[in-house]
């Protein structure tokens, strides 16, 4: 059977060709720093083939036995599906998300050389995306992250140092924007507390060891009994 109902969008042939870096013959106008890693993950698992299968209505084993009604239900709601089919669909969707995820968001940024690109990526990885908060600036696809990447790039072009750029962003977004928290009055407890806690623990252990020794010597003298462990 065919599953034309799953995706009615026409096949976009450009979509099947992952973006290429200008150095590798890609179009510099639309492609920025698509790293080899991104392209690799994309091609490796045959994502284009799966996508083509769906959009062109190729038979997929996971959907075997489904009626057209079932598949129509897929696109609108999940009613009427058996758990087995639902599981198959879930697996397929999960697999697709695996294929399409990339570790770097791609912007059209015209880097002059590889060193500049590496510097940009390193800096972007040290800055936090404030919209998503669990991602860094290099990873995130949010609108703000895109704007900030552009801004970081422009500042790099105008000769600003990494420290300058970080200071610029901290002045606007606070220390939260960098992953490496500075030592100041507010963060001092975070740095001192573990050291202090550890020192107290060590102190307590030494105190106990010394006291036990003394007690044991006294009890040895008094009773001549062997050592007793009390903990």
């Amino acid at each position, binding site marked *: 059977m065919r599953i034309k109902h799953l995706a009615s969008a026409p096949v976009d042939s450009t979509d099947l060709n992952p973006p290429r870096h200008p150095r590798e013959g890609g179009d510099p106008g639309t492609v920025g720093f698509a790293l080899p890693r991104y392209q690799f993950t994309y091609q490796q698992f045959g994502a284009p083939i799966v996508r083509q299968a769906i959009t062109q209505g190729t038979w997929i084993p996971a959907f075997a036995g489904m009626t057209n009604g079932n598949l129509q239900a897929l696109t609108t709601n999940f009613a009427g599906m058996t758990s087995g089919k639902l599981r198959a669909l879930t697996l397929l969707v999960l697999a697709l998300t695996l294929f399409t995820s990339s570790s770097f968001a791609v912007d059209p940024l015209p880097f002059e050389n590889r060193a500049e690109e590496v510097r940009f990526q390193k800096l972007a990885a040290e800055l936090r995306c*404030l*919209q998503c*908060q669990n991602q860094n600036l290099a990873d995130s696809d949010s*609108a*703000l992250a895109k*704007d*900030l990447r552009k*801004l970081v790039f422009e500042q790099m072009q105008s000769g600003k140092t990494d420290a300058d750029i970080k200071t610029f962003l*901290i*002045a*606007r*977004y*606070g220390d*939260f924007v960098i992953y490496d928290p500075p030592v100041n009055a507010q963060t001092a407890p975070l740095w001192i507390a573990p050291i202090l806690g550890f020192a107290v623990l060590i102190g307590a252990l030494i105190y106990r060891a010394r006291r036990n020794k003394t007690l044991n010597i006294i009890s040895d003298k008094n009773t001549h009994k062997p050592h*007793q462990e*009390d*903990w």
Partner: protein
Amino acid sequence: MNARDAKTIRWWAILPFLLFAYLCVILYLNLKSENDPKSVPSPFLGKPIPTFVTTDLLTGSAFDSASLKGQPYILNVWGSWCPECAREHPILNQYAATANAIAIIGLDHKEVDPNDGKAWLERLGNPYRFVPVDPDGRIGIDLGVYGAPESYFVDAAGIVRYKHIGALSLKIINEKVVELSRAN
């Protein structure tokens, strides 16, 4: 093992339970507190709000934020693309309609098409005294905006006294406006 040692052992045994109870209390308090752990404190609190020059969405004339100095105001960052802003909007309308309401300035942030912003205000009402535009988001970056809606409560001296992330409530507006006038 004498009686003194037995006592020390008992004291150590309680410690994990004390720690557990302490953890429970801390977690409970944080669960109950209204602080959004995702909201990032603004570095501009207690400092002058950055000034910006742009145009007004509705009049098309030049807008200089420095001209706002001398009066307390609320700078509300919105966009017609932002669903939470639409949810917040009736509250701003409601506040703007009250007597003695301070000015609300609506920064139209990252609007793709100015007509979208205009239509949005026409449809939902306009509580704003001025509507400066920020199409490329650069003003937003200078203000440390990381999502809309965000609102800055600025006193007459131009100092940011409070920044609210997310939709405002009438209660918060009234509370913070009182604090603004007290700051002077």
